[in-house]
């Protein structure tokens, strides 16, 4: 086994361990972890299967195997960024609705407290 294979396998394992830790500690939601787990899995497969990259490049008709790596990963990253934008948009929507709800509730609370005060004053008189 080549040295680079060992290095990548060890790094992959560390990466998976770190992701697992984040999930266990509740810092990373599972749905976002899926893509990271998948990516590492792909890396693990190609670390063991050295000829794999050449085979895949042939399959897709790419002359230089490293180009396949770049293309595939840039594509994956773009998709993931888009996914993150969708998540952010959803969060923004939720925050807007929450803020509006809070403003409306605060107003109702104020009104109630003011009415309460007025009532107390009347009683005092």
């Amino acid at each position: 086994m080549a040295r680079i294979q060992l290095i990548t396998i060890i790094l992959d394992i560390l990466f998976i361990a770190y992701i697992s830790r984040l999930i266990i500690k509740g810092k990373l939601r599972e749905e976002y972890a899926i893509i990271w787990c998948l990516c590492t899995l792909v890396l693990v497969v190609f670390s063991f299967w050295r000829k794999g990259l050449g085979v895949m490049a042939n399959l897709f008709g790419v002359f230089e195997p490293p180009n396949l790596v770049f293309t595939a990963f840039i594509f994956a990253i773009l998709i993931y960024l888009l996914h993150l934008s969708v998540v952010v948009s959803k969060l923004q929507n939720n925050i807007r609705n929450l803020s509006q709800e809070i403003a409306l509730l605060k107003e109702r609370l104020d009104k109630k407290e003011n009415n309460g005060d007025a009532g107390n004053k009347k009683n005092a008189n």
Partner: protein
Amino acid sequence: MSQKVLIIIPCYNEETSLPLVLKEIGTIKLPNGFMMEAVVINDCSTDDTKNIARKLYTTVLDLPMNLGIGGAVQTGIKYALANNFDFAIQLDGDGQHPPAEIEKLLLAQQNTGVDIVIGSRFIDKQGFQSSFLRRLGINYFYLLNRIFTGNYIFDSTSGFRLLNRKAIAVAAVRYPDDYPEPESLVIFAKAGLKIKEVAVNMRSRLGGKSSIQHGASLFYIIKVTIGMLFSFIRN
């Protein structure tokens, strides 16, 4: 039974102009059969807008985060929906929309029965007319509106509007966040609501800053175009 009218006043750092606007609102008289309430939406101002409004005995909806004009107006619309108002009128806190013109919007609604009345600067070409660039943009939106909704709206960026119950219900569910005016017209048209424009006099702002600064106008146009296009496509 009298009909309830809500004046929605979205404010972001309007401490200089808000007292004048509120005072003017206090002096106007609506036609018989209308009851008016004003609500100030404080969009997380960094100045004293909130306390000034409170001191003048106005209901304040105090947003905990800055949502932008669309989110602020929608808060008022949700308030109108929750409190069973018949009409909601948006009136900016910077003093551009003279409260004395509110009656015109109400009468136009009563006479035509439309769902949305827009107070327009450009029908009679009276009063404050805005800058050249802004008018160029407004012409562009006029064209877009014709294409997307078939409506002939001259002043689609005017925020001075009246919504009836049907329009309130629509806007409470969906209202754009930034630069909402032209896009919301597409949303209303898609919901099958009828829109009419009436001529009003507008003034130059009494204080505060426009939400659209110069560098942002290109972004504004692109954002609104995309917004209108997709509101048009959406089911």
